[in-house]
């Protein structure tokens, strides 16, 4: 009987064993066919895992970091950034500034766009005029609004005259959306894919990736070491990190904070992190308690920034007790300590404002970005501790945008970055139409005037004095209450050389340095 049972079991097991063996063999065969985990890639080809699929590129419009990444590869402006994030000429071989309102750009000789057409001073004039026109939706308006005239002096020389000095003007010209493009791209309908950058788009496969090939017409083509960049889209943070760790790709952007340690501890992988965007609490100041600057100041003192940083970013970042001035030597020590964590001071301010027993409020966040939700939870606890009973409202990102733009909140948690590091980026928080990421109904012309004075200053002393005045006003009027800056990381294999994660807000423009990146397999 036992023999019979055993033989029947064996018989039953045989097909399964065979099936398992077949599956294992098939798996090994597949692995062998494809060269194991990741195909090792060809020499001169960088395999890049990008965190999002870029939308259709629209000329002059800010469309997010994935799109900016592509712009840094296929386009160049008159100015660009070097591996230290310093401003250097791009398409312009040189820039002369005979006086604070005149800029003479001399272009490199023989520039062409990737479609083969010549890039001339007229293209420069037309592109800049397009970006300076508010009707075209460009985010460069703050930098280019002072342009009085643009003259194409010759095929390779352009003179731009400003109505007043603007010490951020050149930095605005290095923003990826300030690229010089063919006249045919100067509209909202033509995809902005023809440029004069180090690479050109060879193939696009929606939902999968894109291939970029070296553009030989680039002004610095001799120094471009990569023949090709093979971009694959990995929207999920874990999947992106897995792709790098397993060797499927050579490089990824936007390492999520929970993956910092895992990626950083992997042999043969470099994690490059830089403090980037900042998080803050914004207010609806149209009515209610937050219309009172004392209450806003109380919120700024109530926030435990270390806790928020730990909750949202596993401490990968820095607490922010003021405003980001991007380590500008001329502004050293200014604006960085406006509010400390001091719950007692917060309670005093609330009492002074007439709310000794606190009040109730809604805090808008979003369920779509965990770090914003975690930041909101931390802020909720802090405000609860000083007597403000906060109810969290966390719709998806689309709902968050709509509610933010409509002022449908009392408090909101946001993250943002200046498109330039010059403190003029703060102007949009105190002036102009309401939008989703600034305090609703807030305006302060005094701060705006000081910031503008800083922008107009032609020497460091005057500039520092103007910004100091602006930051003092910030401290008491509190257009927003800062929380922290988060580390923004790129990661890459040891085989990759020459890439640099640019510091501060420029981290999102680090794609510029791929022009000087190489890969040794």
């Amino acid at each position: 009987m036992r023999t019979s049972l055993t033989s029947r079991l064996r018989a039953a097991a045989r097909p399964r064993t065979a099936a398992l063996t077949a599956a294992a063999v098939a798996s090994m065969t597949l692995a062998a066919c494809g060269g194991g985990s990741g195909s090792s890639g060809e020499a001169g080809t960088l395999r890049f895992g990008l965190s999002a699929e870029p939308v259709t590129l629209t000329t002059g419009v800010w469309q997010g970091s994935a799109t900016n990444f592509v712009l840094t590869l296929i386009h160049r402006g008159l100015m660009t950034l070097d591996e230290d994030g310093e401003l250097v000429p791009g398409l312009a071989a040189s820039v002369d500034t005979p006086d604070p309102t005149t800029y003479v750009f001399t272009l490199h000789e023989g520039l062409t766009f990737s479609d083969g057409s010549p890039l001339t001073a007229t293209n420069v004039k037309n592109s800049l005029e397009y970006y300076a026109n508010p009707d075209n939706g460009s985010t460069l308006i703050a930098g280019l609004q002072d342009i009085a005239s643009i003259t194409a002096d010759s095929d390779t020389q352009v003179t731009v005259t400003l109505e007043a000095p603007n010490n951020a003007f050149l930095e605005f010209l290095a923003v990826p959306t300030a690229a010089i493009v063919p006249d045919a791209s100067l509209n909202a309908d033509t995809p902005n894919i023809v440029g004069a950058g180090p690479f050109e788009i060879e193939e696009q496969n929606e939902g999968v990736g894109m291939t970029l090939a070296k553009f030989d017409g680039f002004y610095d083509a001799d120094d471009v070491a990569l023949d090709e960049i093979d971009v694959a889209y990995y929207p999920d943070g874990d999947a992106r990190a897995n792709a790098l760790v397993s060797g499927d790709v050579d490089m990824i952007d936007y390492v999520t904070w929970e993956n910092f340690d895992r990626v950083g501890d992997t042999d043969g992988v470099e994690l490059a992190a830089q403090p980037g965007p900042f998080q803050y609490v914004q207010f609806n100041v149209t009515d209610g308690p937050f219309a009172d600057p004392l209450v806003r100041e109380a919120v700024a003192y109530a926030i435990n920034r270390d806790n928020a940083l730990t909750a949202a970013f596993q401490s990968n970042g820095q607490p922010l007790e003021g405003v980001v001035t991007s380590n500008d030597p001329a502004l050293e020590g200014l604006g960085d300590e406006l509010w400390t964590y001091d719950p007692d001071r917060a309670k005093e301010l609330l009492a002074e404002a007439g709310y000794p027993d606190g009040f109730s409020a809604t805090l808008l966040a979003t369920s779509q970005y965990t770090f914003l939700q975690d930041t909101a939870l931390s802020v909720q606890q802090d405000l609860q501790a000083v007597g403000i009973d906060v109810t969290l409202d966390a719709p998806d990102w689309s709902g968050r945008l709509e509610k933010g733009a409509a002022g449908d909140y009392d408090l909101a948690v946001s993250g943002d970055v200046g498109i330039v590091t010059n403190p003029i980026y703060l102007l949009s928080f105190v002036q102009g139409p309401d939008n989703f990421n600034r305090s609703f109904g807030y305006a302060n012309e005094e701060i705006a005037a000081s910031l503008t004075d800083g922008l107009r200053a032609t020497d460091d002393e005057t500039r520092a004095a103007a910004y100091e005045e602006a930051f003092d006003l910030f401290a008491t009027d509190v257009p927003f209450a800062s929380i922290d800056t988060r580390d923004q990381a790129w990661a890459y294999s040891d085989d990759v050389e020459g890439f640099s994660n640019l510091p501060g807000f420029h981290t999102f423009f680090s794609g510029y340095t791929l022009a000087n990146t190489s890969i040794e397999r």
Partner: protein
Amino acid sequence: MTTYVLRRIGVGVGLVLLVLTLIFLALHLVPGDPAMLLLSQGDGGSATPDAVARVREQLGLDQPLLTQYWQFLSGALTGDLGESFRNGQAVSEAIGERLPRTLELVGLATLIAVVVGVPWGALAARKGGWFDSVTSVLTSIGVALPVFVFGSLLVLLFSLELGLLPAGGFTEWGDDPGRHAQLLIMPAIALAVGFASTIARMTRSAVLEMLHQDWVRTARSLGLSRRTVFRKYVLRNSLNPVVTTVGIGVGTLLGSTVLVEKVFSYPGLSSLLVDAVTARDYPVVQGVVITIAVLFVSINIIVDVLYGVLDPRVRR
């Protein structure tokens, strides 16, 4: 039989029209402005109200809702599903690219699930004892184990530890068949585990129920061997509920492979749908939902027809 099939098709068409209307209304009722989203991607800068209004106009979102509905309906009926708000790609083209990938994934997962699940469940029912108990435990785990957990475990083992398979991504068959197959195998297995467990459990209970029927005993008493009775009569008669499970399961998988697609960065139809919902890309959401609805209804019609083939009493 023809009347039966035509009746099923008529109900199916009605269902698709209903889904079409419901999805349009649902999308427009949910808060969120596609134009604002398009101009507010990530950090840095926010669009002015004027810029948002211009994009709304470009996308036709400034039109009255009824006009938009009519445009959508007439477009859908003529096969024009519009263009994606995000990348301008024709929705039918996007679906044409993504659907075969998802069908391939679901097809392979279903094949694995059926090939493993049906014999496994039947064997458990027939053998009973410890094999049945182990089957119950394993299939319970298989059903309960979230697909993203199992998928992540596969990645951990086969990609990160053993380095045998890529962690995720996609390559066209035409570009590199070997890598295409490599990239398909783990998502398919991850998707198949829960499905195979469900099929095994369904097969087991159906076979057990059938084994206790009087006619089984009668067949045995007439001299037919146990094996013959099992293979020719019991298993076949047990397959009706299994076919239903497979049919519904395949339909569900078509719209719910999203987790597996996320874990493995597999650009299928489900991730297209979820990304489109997040971005309020109305034409894409509508197009994908219509496609899934048509497929789901078609599969159910096929299942209904199969019932008729397997059991003529259903046709009455």
